[in-house]
């Protein structure tokens, strides 16, 4: 039986601090970029049903700005920022799904949500 004997990699405290800060900035940037979802407000105001559906697809519409941002920072070697953006987008996607579920119910029930 072979063992997976992997020596722990040497930690680099300064590098760890800067990468950690970059990841934090990446998460912060995710939140800031999410304000672009305000572009959906006119659609949301069209009627109640359209509004509910518009915001229920939050996890998907974020791809329009999150993917370019991730690619941009990845190409510019902003590794920490890229990691932060990926984590932020994934969390948004997962937590946004319950709203998508509500949107599904709303769209498929004759009388919407009550």
């Amino acid at each position, binding site marked *: 039986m072979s063992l997976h004997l992997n020596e722990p990699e040497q930690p680099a405290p300064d*590098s760890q601090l800067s990468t950690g800060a970059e990841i934090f900035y990446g998460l912060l940037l995710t939140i800031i970029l999410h304000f672009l979802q305000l572009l959906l407000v006119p659609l949301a105001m069209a009627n109640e049903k359209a509004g509910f*559906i518009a915001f229920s697809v939050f996890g998907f519409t974020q791809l329009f700005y999150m993917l370019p941002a991730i690619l941009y920072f990845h190409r510019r070697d902003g590794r920490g920022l890229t990691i932060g953006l990926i984590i932020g987008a994934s969390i948004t996607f997962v937590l946004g799904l319950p709203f998508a579920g509500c949107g*599904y119910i709303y769209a498929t029930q004759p009388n919407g949500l009550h």
Partner: protein
Amino acid sequence: VQFPVRFQLGPLTLHAHWLFESLAYFIGFRLYLWQRKRHGDVVNFEHRMWVVAAAIAGAALGSKVLNWFADPHVFWQNWRNPYFLMSGKTVVGGLIGGLFAVEWAKLRLGITARTGDLFALPLCLGITIGRIGCFLSGLEDDTYGVATALPWGVDFGDGVRRHPTQLYEILWLALLALWIYHLSRRAHRNGDLFKTFMAGYFVFRLVVDFIKPGGAIGGLTGIQWACVATLIYYARDLPFLIRVHQPDNSPSESARM
């Protein structure tokens, strides 16, 4: 208790599922960070963060994709409905998606160390907290069991007493966490804690999904087929995972998490 349970937080009404799911991610991640600080890590910080990012992204996608195929009949009836495609997710798909995304990321980064042990206990805790939300969501969440005459059957509001499969899962995860903790205190190979979690969880899901409603193909649901495939993936390690709990059986690489 009236299902689904909602919590009032000032002017906000929070759905139990969303609240407990958010808590699950937060508390699970805090436990992970605490373990990493206490026990150290086998990879450097940047590599670990890439692994975490891959795990979260893979889990997000995997949980979604497998949910489509959980009940193939429902999928074929609704695959053109965008709202069906967007709603729901499954833990099994999340674990599989996370697993493959991490392996892909490690391959790209040239990481050969087993990196999953630090995730084992946080996953147990996180899923446990999440399942509380599933239970409190009642019939709105597709995690309840089939009808039963057993005394602990729960009426989620439709007059039918059902297996509280969410509570079964919580109980199983508590036992699994104790087992993993016990293993972590003894000689084990790097990676065995995560494999023990995966094997233990997928065996449970394979069994418990027999008492959940849902369409089957070849006697098993889509989620159960995914469990079978994952257990085959880990089949090579299963004998060792069982033997490793016997004292003086294996050389110690590390007793840390």
